[in-house]
């Protein structure tokens, strides 16, 4: 073996600095192999999902698909300028408004827990409740909003936004909280030592230092909410027409349309479902890129 020759070819008195042969070297190789294997296994579903959605959805995607009205599901793909326009509009407005509600509230909540609450009972209660909320199934959130809002005010995009905001809130709180915890305390102390008030320290030192992670966390929440179907079924009533009024009348969304079309037996509907799925992924992807650009501007001094 090469190692044996190397050992024997060594000049006398020169120490052997290699990992000793035997179990330790073998263990290292075994663990390295296992890690590579685990990485490959993780890649399988990721690549397969992307590949399948792109392969099946790419043929559906066109400008007309993104803007055209939703046809009856017996119609073939691309029938008479049709597409998923109403669902794209619905997803953007419902998810957008949900983010508008959940992100400020969630970030402020996390700031309270980490910066102001300390070890107070209220802070612990909020933290615990938000963890519990993370575990609530999304369909339950839908039913909750159905009971307290839809039964009184009827179906609307707003009701959908409420349900999605409820889902996003704990994710935003938890991820923001974790990011704030990572901000080194000596930055806070440096700011306090210059006579800054607590709100100053939080606004000018802590939040800017954590902004990268906070944006990532919020985006994960938005992306997850955009793909939720169950809570929308009870709140927006999935129609086929565009409704730009978020505050009244039934609405529609990509996720709900994917569900409706994929469960129908028609070829055209199935193709539209794949197209809608790809659109949803692309929307999330574009959001990520935009957020990265914004974050890069904020964190250009962090390195």
């Amino acid at each position, binding site marked *: 073996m090469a190692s044996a020759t190397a050992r024997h070819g060594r000049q006398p008195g020169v120490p052997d600095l290699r990992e000793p042969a035997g179990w330790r070297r073998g263990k290292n190789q075994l663990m390295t192999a296992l890690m590579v294997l685990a990485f490959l296994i993780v890649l399988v579903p990721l690549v397969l999902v992307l590949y399948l959605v792109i392969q099946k959805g790419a043929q559906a995607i066109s400008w007309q698909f993104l803007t055209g009205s939703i046809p009856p599901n017996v119609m073939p793909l691309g029938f008479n300028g049709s597409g998923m326009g109403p669902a794209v509009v619905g997803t953007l407005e419902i998810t957008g408004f949900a983010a508008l509600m959940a992100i400020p509230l969630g970030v402020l909540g996390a700031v309270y827990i980490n910066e102001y609450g*300390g*070890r107070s009972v209220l802070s612990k209660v909020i933290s615990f409740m938000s963890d519990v909320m993370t575990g609530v199934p999304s369909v339950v959130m839908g039913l909750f909003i159905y009971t307290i809002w839809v039964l009184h005010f009827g179906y609307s995009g707003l009701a959908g936004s409420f349900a999605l905001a409820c889902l996003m809130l704990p994710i935003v709180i938890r991820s923001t909280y974790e990011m704030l915890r990572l901000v*080194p305390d*000596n*930055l*806070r*102390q*440096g*700011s*306090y*030592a*210059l*006579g*800054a*008030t607590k709100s*100053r320290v939080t606004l*000018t*030192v802590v939040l*800017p*230092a954590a902004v990268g992670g906070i944006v990532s966390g919020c985006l994960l929440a938005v992306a997850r909410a955009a793909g939720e179907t169950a809570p929308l079924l009870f709140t927006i009533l999935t129609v086929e027409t565009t409704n730009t009024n978020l505050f009244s009348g039934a609405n529609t969304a990509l996720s709900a349309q994917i569900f409706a079309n994929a469960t129908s037996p028609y070829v055209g509907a199935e193709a539209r479902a794949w197209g809608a799925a790809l659109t949803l992924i692309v929307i999330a992807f574009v959001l990520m890129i935009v957020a990265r650009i914004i974050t890069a501007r904020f*964190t*250009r*001094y*962090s*390195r």
Partner: protein
Amino acid sequence: MEQRENEITAKVTVPETATGRRPGSQAGPTVFDLDKVSVYYGAFRAVTDVSMTIHENEITAFIGPSGCGKTTVLRSLNRMNDLIPGARVDGKIRYRGAGLYDVQASPTAVRRRIGMVFQKANPFPKSIYDNIAYGPRINGIRGKSRLDEIVETALRQAALWDEVKDRLGKSGLGLSGGQAQRLCIARTLAVEPDVVLMDEPCSALDPIATGRIEDLMQEIKSKFTIVIVTHNMQQATRVSDRTAFFSVLRNEKPGQSDTRTGVLVEYDRTANIFDNPKDERTQAYVTGRMG
């Protein structure tokens, strides 16, 4: 209260006269007056009954072994201990006659006058310029030309201007350890404090960077009062006018757990502490036989 103040003055002057001042070295006005100060972290008494006065335009060094409470006392001088849950100060700390821990005293107002430089340089993740302008901005100073002037003055005072003047817009995190610490000093000076507290500012720096900061301290001491905690006794002899030696007092009562607390052993002119200490614990420490 009035009675008590008289007591303090009396107590402070005694060691002065006993040790004898060096010719021509008149003590300036009193900046800090500590009377039986004890600092607690929860139930733990970190420092017990520290009484001393700190004088204007002098550099006062705190030395002593680890755990003797020197940093704790330093941090109580600008109420940084307030940030630690459970920390509490007993006794009286007067800053130029005003009670530092009076109910009406605001920690932010205190810290605007009494700045602090930390052991580990902590530049903000902002540009060099914004690091320096941070303090003035929170004090309400706007206006580009005014801020430019403050930034330049502070960086010059901290002997950093020539090294960074061409990259004020670059991140403060890109500086070397010594530069970063001088940036933090400049940041502290930019708010024009009365006192600068330094908590082992050179412990992470090489001798050259340390020398720069020591020179800098000598240059600025005519405008500021400086209190420095240091583990380096040579540094104390090099820079300070007065030295306070703190030590750990162990209180081992039978049947009780070992309780320990920091105490001020001796406080005098630096030359006296190192050449002619009166307490044998000081003697043992400065000659390297203990701690």
